[in-house]
């Protein structure tokens, strides 16, 4: 399957500190991929790099190919076209990411109008239609309101509408529900998925929530310390994790059916630049042996998945 | 004092910026000049010599002479003392007033704090130079009228920075435990809150010194502060003003440059001490 987006050996550095350490991930047409990891694992930076939105001072190297075009080397014009029409980005915190002094209508339509994709009138009409689709009642009135007059859940729907309006082929969603009230999280997630699947769009979904990611994506990539430690089809990966870190994540989430003590992963997550020569997870892994501390495990195929662990075969039975 | 310094210096050194070193050295040098300057004068500061009036810089008079033949270098050096003493007192008065007000309002909180805040806001709205001029009207022109007025006008700026730190410290657990242990508010304020406030107060005072020096010199320039023939930089600028028409620029240039360099040095040093927060 040819992929719509292919990230190959992506490194993100600030000065000489590595933040993203050789990430490779692909998203096919109409495919949903989850990028899962704790905060600081480099998952959001990967998305930012894929949109060339890294904060000043951070340098990306490697290859990020969207539909045959390398994003990292594309010209200013190509980049503008890519951001404006090919991809859409949904941020974690809609309240911070929407200008408080402009109306909802101005926010939703400015992307397509300023990049010449629609006239103002077309954009308003399309935006209202889309707002009704995502369950925003009285869209006309909302268009004239200011962000502070809307609830967080409603505002995130507005953000979704804004991202979808140009009809992008790929949506980047960076923890789209984390900042919302628990009661509206699943609703917003469902609306987002509906819009993506019905239109055959692709999704790269970044989250720390492994369960949520497994529920909404086709494939998962688990990140730790700036690198991908395991990838696979979502249901397989959750049912039978191969990497001890994935297994640890699965064990540390609360169960909905039984009350039991959670097993936290001991130690604290580390950043990519804190990793020594060995396996990034060796400091916290229950199965660490000498080799893990000295030699960095490469990603390799196992059971049709990819895993970066020296002892994956022998641990197959114990970790899950 | 020693304790407070040890808190300031490591942080400042940690910043390690060349701006800090340069501005610190300049401010230190100028202050030293203000202290010992009057003893370094090559001529008597008010010795007139009509035969050598309005000379440009030369071997006899390095920076030239004014229209009465007084040596400009001597007047600049002698004038440094008054030019510095005025703003130094302004900063001292405003620091004491501002800190007292800030600690008082932060300690009591509630409506006292709100009332003090209102008062500060009104005081912020008062133009300093106007108050200084009016003060000269009431108390008579001279050294003290502008010093007292400016000390009062600058107090809110001190109070604002001190208050923010004091409010934060006030709600730390240790203050409450000291209070429970029976320590008086005054002692807690002096012994525990003040040292925490000191670094930011020093930064603000340094910054304020530059502005106060300019304002103090301005009052003298207007003829309502230090009176000629006393040497002071603002007075020198005023005297230089009338010499300009005869094409004699040296007095204006020397006094003006000294004022600007001093203000820049103290402004930059204050901003650096505050950690670039200003």
């Amino acid at each position, binding site marked *: 399957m040819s992929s719509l987006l292919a990230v190959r050996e992506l490194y993100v550095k600030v000065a000489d500190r590595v933040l993203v350490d050789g990430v490779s991930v692909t998203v096919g047409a109409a495919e949903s991929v989850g990028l899962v990891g704790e905060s600081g694992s480099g998952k959001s930076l990967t998305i930012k790099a894929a*949109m060339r*939105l890294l904060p000043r001072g951070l340098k990306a190297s490697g290859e990020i190919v969207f539909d045959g075009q390398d994003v990292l080397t594309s010209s200013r014009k190509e*980049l*503008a*076209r*890519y*951001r*404006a*029409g090919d991809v859409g*980005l949904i*941020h974690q915190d809609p309240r*911070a*990411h929407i*200008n*408080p*002094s*402009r109306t909802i209508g101005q926010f939703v339509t*400015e*992307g397509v109008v*300023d*990049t010449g994709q629609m006239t103002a009138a077309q954009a308003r009409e399309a935006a209202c239609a889309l707002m009704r689709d995502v369950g925003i009642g009285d869209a006309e009135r909302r268009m004239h309101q*200011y962000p*502070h007059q809307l609830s967080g859940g409603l505002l995130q729907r507005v953000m979704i509408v804004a991202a979808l309006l140009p009809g992008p082929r790929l949506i980047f969603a960076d923890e789209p529900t984390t900042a919302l009230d628990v009661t509206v999280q699943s609703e917003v997630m469902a609306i987002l998925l509906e819009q993506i699947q019905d239109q055959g769009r692709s999704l790269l979904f970044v989250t720390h929530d492994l369960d949520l990611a497994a529920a909404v994506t086709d494939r998962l990539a688990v990140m730790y310390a700036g690198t991908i430690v395991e990838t696979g089809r979502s249901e397989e990966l959750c049912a039978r994790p191969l990497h001890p870190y994935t297994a640890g994540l699965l064990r540390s989430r609360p169960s909905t059916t039984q009350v039991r003590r959670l097993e936290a992963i001991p130690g604290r997550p580390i950043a990519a630049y804190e990793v020594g020569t060995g396996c990034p997870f060796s400091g916290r892994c229950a199965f660490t042996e000498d080799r893990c501390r000295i030699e960095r495990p490469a990603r390799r195929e196992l059971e049709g998945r990819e895993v970066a662990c020296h002892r994956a075969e022998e641990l197959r039975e114990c970790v899950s | 004092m020693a304790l407070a310094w040890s808190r300031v210096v490591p942080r400042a050194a940690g910043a390690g910026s060349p701006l800090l070193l340069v501005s610190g050295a300049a401010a230190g040098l100028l202050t030293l000049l203000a202290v010992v300057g009057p003893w370094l004068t090559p001529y008597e500061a008010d010795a007139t010599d009509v035969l050598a009036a309005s000379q440009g810089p030369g071997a006899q008079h390095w920076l030239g002479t004014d229209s009465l033949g007084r040596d400009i270098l001597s007047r600049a050096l002698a004038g440094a003392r008054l030019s510095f003493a005025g703003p130094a007192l302004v900063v001292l008065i405003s620091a004491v007033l501002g800190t007292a007000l800030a600690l008082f309002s932060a300690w009591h909180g509630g409506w006292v704090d709100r009332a003090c805040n209102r008062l500060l806001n*009104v005081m912020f*709205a*008062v*133009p*300093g*130079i*106007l108050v200084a*001029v*009016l003060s*000269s*009207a*009431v108390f*008579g022109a001279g050294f003290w009228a502008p010093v007292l007025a400016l000390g009062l006008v600058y107090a809110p700026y001190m109070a604002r920075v001190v208050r923010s730190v004091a409010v934060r410290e006030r709600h730390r657990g240790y203050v409450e435990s000291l209070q429970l242990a029976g320590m008086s508010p005054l002692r807690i304020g002096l012994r525990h809150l003040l040292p925490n406030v000191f670094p930011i107060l020093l930064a603000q005072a340094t910054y304020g010194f530059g502005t106060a020096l*300019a304002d103090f*010199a*301005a009052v003298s*320039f*207007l*003829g*309502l502060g230090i009176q000629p023939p006393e040497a002071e930089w*603002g007075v020198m*600028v005023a005297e*230089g*003003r009338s010499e*300009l*028409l005869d094409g004699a*620029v040296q007095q*204006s*240039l020397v*006094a*003006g440059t000294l*004022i*600007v360099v001093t*203000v*820049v040095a103290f*402004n*930059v040093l204050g901003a650096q001490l505050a950690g670039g927060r200003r």
Partner: protein
Amino acid sequence: MRRTIGAVSGALATIVAASFVIYAGLSVAPGDPVARILGPRATDEARAAVRAQLGLDDPLLERYWHWLTAALQGDLGRSLTYRQEVAGLLGPRLETTLMLVAMAASLVLVVGVAVGVAGGVARRGRPVVAGLVALGVAVPSFVAANLLIGVFAVQLGWFPTYGAGDGFWDKMWHLTLPAVALSIGYGAYVAQLTSAAVEEESGKEYVETSRGRGIPAGIIVRRHVLRNAALPVLTASGLAVAGLVSGTLIVEQAFGVDGIGALLVQSVSSKDYDVVTAVSLLIVIVFVVMTTMIDVVQVALDPRERAGT
């Protein structure tokens, strides 16, 4: 609305309080107005008569009340120096001062904001702007005045060295150097705050959102960064313009411009207290009105404030 009413009543209270402080302060100032009026050889009876006429033996509060009610009817007292009604003294001088302030304010707003925006937007220009600002803030207007007079009036002869001129264009020509001297400090202040505000807004998340949507950088700067930075810039500009008014004290004196600033300084020197009271109160009123306007406009500009209280 409630905030607006609060701001306006606070302003009125401040003005009344300031008028009392100024009046009370000057009433204890040295100098004997009776001697000024009658001369040194007056008889005791004549002195007593004048004292009674001026109400100098009445209690302070009563005198203040008389002054206040008279002032509200436009009677600001008499100048001892000019032997003239104070109100009549103010008229033409106020015109000169307002023109000076207007010219300086235009310079502060245009140059200050432009330099600040340049420093905030163009990262490479930032050290240059920071250096200019540090220098500009530190140059007192009376020092700048000497420099400008020395270079542009005496050496180059482009501008007059003294006075305010007659007629609009002549006045403008005369007031150019004073306006420049007056605007340097506040211009630097506005530039500094503008550049900081623009820099801060440029780092906001919603700017990143717009960049992520492929919107051209020029549009982002204009519509998001500058629009949202406008509020702090407006505040700083308002304070700066208010400050310019009291700055005229120094600049008018330095350039020999006979506006109300110079009038105040001269009246303090000559102990002409009716004039001092009137002029200083006028400056306070302008200052308070400016700061109140900033407050009110702030509320009007911010949709959150507007919808709130």
